[in-house]
């Protein structure tokens, strides 16, 4: 056959390699870990109360009333501070928000809420991230929309910023 084509083969392979590397460098893969629990019922759990003055959180509480926003947060999580005013805004718009405190202490949570506002109706204490993992969440902050029948409908990874509010409200409306 044509010898020239055979000789050019390594060059062609190299060109393809450069193309592949160039493509991945210009559009890096998305490292966000998405939960596979969307469309599934909330996992069974019953967390102790994170604060003495606030009711605890169990999966049964999420099944009972309307669409709810479950917010996984922590007092040691800096993006959670950025998210706090937006959660307060959502609360003022009538959104029911429950909190799951990841690896936290009552003193630290109390201080966090005093500094940044308290949008939570109930709050569970997840000391070893076990419920977080049951939700398929990989970090804080993350938020889940749970509909009236207790099915997870939507996941937001990272802090909810003002520009995310319309999406969150629309998802809550859909879950009604």
């Amino acid at each position, binding site marked *: 056959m044509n010898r020239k084509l055979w000789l050019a083969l390594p060059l062609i392979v190299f060109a393809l390699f450069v193309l592949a590397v160039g493509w991945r460098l210009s559009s890096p893969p998305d*490292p966000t*870990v*998405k*939960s*596979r*629990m969307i469309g599934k019922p909330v996992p069974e759990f019953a967390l102790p109360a994170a604060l003495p003055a606030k009711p605890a959180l169990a999966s049964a509480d999420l099944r009972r009333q309307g669409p709810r926003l479950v917010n996984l947060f*922590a007092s*040691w*999580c*800096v*993006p959670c*501070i*950025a998210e706090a005013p937006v959660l307060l805004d959502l609360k003022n718009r009538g959104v029911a928000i429950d909190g799951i405190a*990841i*690896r*936290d*202490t009552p003193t630290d949570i109390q201080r966090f809420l005093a500094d940044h506002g308290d949008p939570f109706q109930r709050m569970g204490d997840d*000391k*070893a*991230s*076990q419920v*977080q*993992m*049951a*939700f*398929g969440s*990989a*970090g*804080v902050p993350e938020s889940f929309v749970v509909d009236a029948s207790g099915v997870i409908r939507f996941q937001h990874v*990272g*802090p909810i*910023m003002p520009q995310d509010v319309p999406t969150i409200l629309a998802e809550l409306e859909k879950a009604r």
Partner: protein
Amino acid sequence: MILLLALSTPAWADSAQPPAPYAYRQLEDAKQEARAKALMAELRCLVCQGQSIAESDAEMAGDMRSLVRQRIKAGESPDEVRTWLIERYGSWVSYKPTFSPETLFLYAAPLLLLLAGSLLAARRMKRRRVR
């Protein structure tokens, strides 16, 4: 400024809380520990993607190790624990690929290569005999 803080990776700091019960402690039963250990080497750490939870020092990896050990201790098989995690995070969480339509080619590749190789070899041998 707040947004910048939110976007910077070191900002996703660790808590000051003690590690989960079985994050750095072996199971009392050596057989169970061996099974848990083997599984942990095959599970991907969620925050330090690229390391297994057995070798990562991230807090989340410790929590995952504790989850694995506690479930094994409770009598679950390593495959049940792996399935539980895959149901939540996708097959991505396991370094050992599960058999599915997506991975069919992966599992079929050795057979296909062997087949192609033997065809090539057969053709060559035939030619030599003719000569």
